[in-house]
C-alpha cells in the first residue's frame, strides 16, 4: 500500500460502472490515481448537447467521490484517421469490421497510453475484463474471471510491451461483483446501464448511421444457384449468417445471408433451418498479432473464437511465411465472417489474433463469402 503511492496510474474513464470501479480499486490499493476521459467522437444530440457531456459528467462525479483528479483528452482526429476510416473501408469492401479491436490497438493502448506516459504515469489502467500475468519479467494476457464478460477478444492486438504498462483491475471479478462494489461505495455510476453497440453509433439506428457516410447501392439478392429472390438495400447493411431484416420471409424455412459479391453487388441468400453453405472448415487471417511472439510455433493446436462471446473451438494454426495464418477447424464452423477477429487461446492464455480474410472449405476459398 505504502509503496504504491509513488506509482502513478492513469485510468481511462468512460463514465461507466466498470472504469469507475477500476479507479476506485486502484485508489484503495494506495496508487497515485489520475482519471482521464477520452473524447473520440464529436457528436451532438437533438438538443445540440455534445453526447460525450453526460458521460464526462459521470466521470467528474465519480472522481470527486473517490477523490482523484480528472481530466479529458481529445483523440477525435486519431480516432477518425485510424479507426473510423478503417471501419468505412471494411464496409465498402463488403466485410464486417470490428472497430473495438482497432480502437484498443490504435487509440486506447497506443495514443492514450502515450498520453498517460507523458503525464508521468507508470501504468495505464482500464475497466476491461481481462487479466495480465507477470512471470519472470514476461507478461501474458489471460481471460477475465467472468467468462461471460471476458474481453480478451477485443484485446488480441496488444503487444507484450504494452501489457507491461497496463493494469486491468477488474480481471479477477465478476460483473455482478463490480456492480456490488459500486453500490457499496455509492458510486454515481453504480446503476448506470452498460453501453451497447459501437461507441460512436451509440443507441442510434445502425443503417441510418452508416448511410450518412457511405452511399447505399441497392442490388439483387440471389441464391447460390443465381436465382433472383429479391432486392437488398446495400451490401454493407448485411452480415454473414443474418436472418432478420431481409424482407423475404413468408411461408417455409427461414432465409439467411450466406455471402456477398462486392464486384457485382449481389447478396447471396439461402433458405433452410441451417443452410450448409453457412458452414466452413478453415480460414485465412491477416494482420496477425502474437502477444508473446517468440513462443509461437509454426504449426500448433489451440482453441479459437471467431466472434465475441462465442464458445471456443479447437483449431490447428499454420503460420504462413508472410505472417498470415491458416486456421483449420476440427469441426465445421457456422457463419465465419470476413472482417471479424479470430482470436487464439491456450487454456486461459490469449495468444493473439488476426482479421478473418478468407473462408475455406475443403481447402478451397469460399468465393461467395467475399
Amino acid at each position, binding site marked *: 500500500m505504502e509503496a504504491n503511492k509513488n506509482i502513478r496510474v492513469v485510468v481511462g474513464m468512460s463514465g461507466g460502472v466498470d472504469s469507475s470501479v477500476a479507479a476506485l480499486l486502484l485508489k484503495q490499493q494506495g496508487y*497515485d490515481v*489520475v482519471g482521464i*476521459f477520452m*473524447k473520440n467522437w464529436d457528436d451532438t444530440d437533438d438538443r445540440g448537447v*455534445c453526447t460525450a457531456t453526460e458521460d*464526462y459528467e459521470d466521470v467528474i462525479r465519480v472522481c470527486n467521490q473517490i477523490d482523484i*483528479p480528472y481530466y*479529458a483528452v*481529445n483523440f477525435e482526429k486519431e480516432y477518425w484517421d485510424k479507426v473510423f476510416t478503417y471501419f468505412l473501408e471494411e464496409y465498402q469492401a463488403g466485410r464486417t469490421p470490428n472497430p473495438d479491436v482497432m480502437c484498443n490497438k490504435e487509440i486506447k493502448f497506443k495514443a492514450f497510453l502515450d498520453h498517460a506516459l507523458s503525464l508521468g504515469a507508470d501504468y495505464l489502467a482500464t475497466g476491461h475484463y481481462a487479466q495480465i500475468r507477470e512471470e519472470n519479467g514476461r507478461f501474458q494476457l489471460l481471460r477475465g474471471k467472468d467468462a461471460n464478460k471476458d474481453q480478451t477478444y477485443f484485446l488480441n492486438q496488444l503487444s507484450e510491451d504494452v501489457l507491461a504498462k497496463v493494469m486491468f483491475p477488474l480481471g479477477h471479478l465478476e460483473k455482478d461483483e463490480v456492480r456490488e462494489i459500486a453500490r457499496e461505495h455509492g458510486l454515481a455510476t453504480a446503476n448506470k446501464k452498460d453501453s451497447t453497440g459501437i461507441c460512436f453509433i451509440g443507441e442510434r439506428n445502425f443503417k441510418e448511421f452508416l448511410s450518412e457516410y457511405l452511399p447505399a447501392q441497392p442490388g439483387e439478392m440471389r441464391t447460390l444457384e443465381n436465382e433472383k429472390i429479391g432486392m437488398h438495400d446495400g451490401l454493407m447493411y448485411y452480415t454473414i449468417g443474418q436472418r432478420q431484416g431481409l424482407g423475404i420471409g413468408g411461408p417455409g424455412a427461414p432465409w439467411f445471408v450466406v455471402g456477398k459479391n462486392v464486384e457485382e453487388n449481389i447478396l447471396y441468400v439461402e433458405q433452410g433451418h441451417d443452410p450448409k453453405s453457412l458452414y466452413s472448415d478453415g480460414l485465412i487471417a491477416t494482420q496477425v498479432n502474437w502477444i508473446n511472439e517468440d513462443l509461437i510455433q509454426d504449426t500448433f493446436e489451440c482453441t479459437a473464437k471467431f466472434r465475441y462471446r462465442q464458445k471456443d473451438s479447437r483449431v490447428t494454426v499454420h503460420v504462413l511465411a508472410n505472417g498470415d495464418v491458416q486456421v483449420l477447424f476440427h469441426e465445421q464452423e457456422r457463419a465465419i465472417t470476413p472482417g471479424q477477429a479470430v482470436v487464439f487461446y491456450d487454456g486461459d492464455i490469449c495468444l493473439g489474433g488476426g482479421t478473418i480474410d478468407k473462408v475455406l472449405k475443403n481447402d478451397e476459398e469460399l468465393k461467395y463469402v467475399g
Partner: protein
Amino acid sequence: MFFIQPLRFRFYFNKVLENLAVLINHEKRFINDEEGTVFMEEIYLDHAATTPIHEKVLTTMYQIMNDTFGNPSSIHSFGRKARSYLDQARRVMAESINANEKEIIFTSGGTEADNLALIGTAMANKDKGKHIITSAQEHHATLYAAKYLEKQGFKVTYLPVYPNGQISVDDLKKSLTDDTILVSIMTVNNETGIIQPIEEIGDLLKEHQAYFHTDAVQAFGQLAIDVKKLNIDLLSVSAHKINGPKGIGFLYAAEDVLINALQYGGEQERKRRPGTENVAGVVGMQAAVEIATASRHERIEENQRLKAVFLQTLREHDVNFMINGDEELAVSSIVNISFPGINVESMLTNLDLSGVAASSGSACTAGSVEPSHVLVAMYGEGNERTTNSIRFSFGLGLTPEMMVEAANRVSNIIKRLTN
C-alpha cells in the same frame, strides 16, 4: 433572528481567516518526487478565470449576512437597513468609473451584464436600426448574445482581430452604417490580456447614434476607467475577477440609454433587473471595488514584477516560447504563451499534476480543450498557436519566489514533453 455569541463568532472567524490564508494560492499537499515524498506548493496562475476572495471582502460579507437580512424593497426598518447598504455600495461602484448612481444595475455577474447590454439595448432600439458591431474575440457572453440577436433578425458584424491582439478602429469605422445601434468591444481580452483601442472607439462613436458597450470584466482594477471621458454608454463588471464574491456584478448604463429588462418580475434596479438584490454580494463587491481602486497602482506594479520574473525564469531555462499578441499592449495580470511542440491538453494536465493551475481557451462540455476562438481570430484556424498556448494570469497572494518555482515546473514539463 439568528445570533452568534461574539466570542464564538470571533473564534470561528479567526479560524476561517487562518484557513483562508492557507487556501489562497498555496494550498499544500503531498506529491511524489523522484527523491521521494516532498512538500508541494500549489501555485494559482489562473486569476483571469477567477480570483481568491480578499480577506476584507470576506469579513464584510460575513458581517452583513450576520447583521442584515431585510429585503431592500420592504418598507420597514429591516428593509431600510438593507437598502442603505445597497445605496452605499451603488455610490462606490458609480464613483469607481465616474458614473452616477442611477446608472448602476446590479446583475448576477459579467455574463448577465453583457447579455443585458446587448439584448436589452438591441430590443429597445430596434426601431432605430438593426445592425450591431462586435469582434471575433469577445467573451462568449457577448458573442452568443450576438448570435441570439442574429436569430432575432439583427445583423451582426464581427470585426477581425490582428496578430497584435487588437481590433482596428479603421475596420470599425468602415463597418459603421446609419443602421448601427450598438458597438460592443471588450476593454481587455480575457485570454491575451490585450488592451483594445477603447478611447478611439469612444471618440469615433461620439457623433454616431450607436451605443458603445465595453466588457470591462478583465480591465476593471487593471486600468483607470472613466466612462464619461471615454464616452462609454454601457460597461460590464464582475466581482469575482477582482477578489470579490461570485454571483455578483454590475452593468453601467448611461442615463440616456434605452434598455429593456431581460427578466420579468419586481421593480428592482429601476425595472431593469427584477429580483430581490443580492445584498451581501453587492456589499462584498463594494469592498472588492474599494480595494481594487485604492491599490490599483501597486497591484499593476506587483503583477508586472511577477510576470517579469516568470518570463525571465523561463528564458533562463532556455524554454522555447512566444508571447501571443503584442506584449506592450497587454495588462500586467495576463500573459498568453505559445510553446512550440507541445499539446495543450497534455501541458495543462501536467501543470495541474505538478501543482501549477493555468488555463487555455475554453473546455468543451465534455472536458476536452478546444482551440481558443481568440487565438483563432488572431492567427487563423489551424495555426499551431491555437493548440499549443497557455494563459497564465497573476494576482493576489503570489510572490516572486512562487513565480520562479512555477516557471521551473513549466520548464521541466516542457523539456520532458519535447525531448
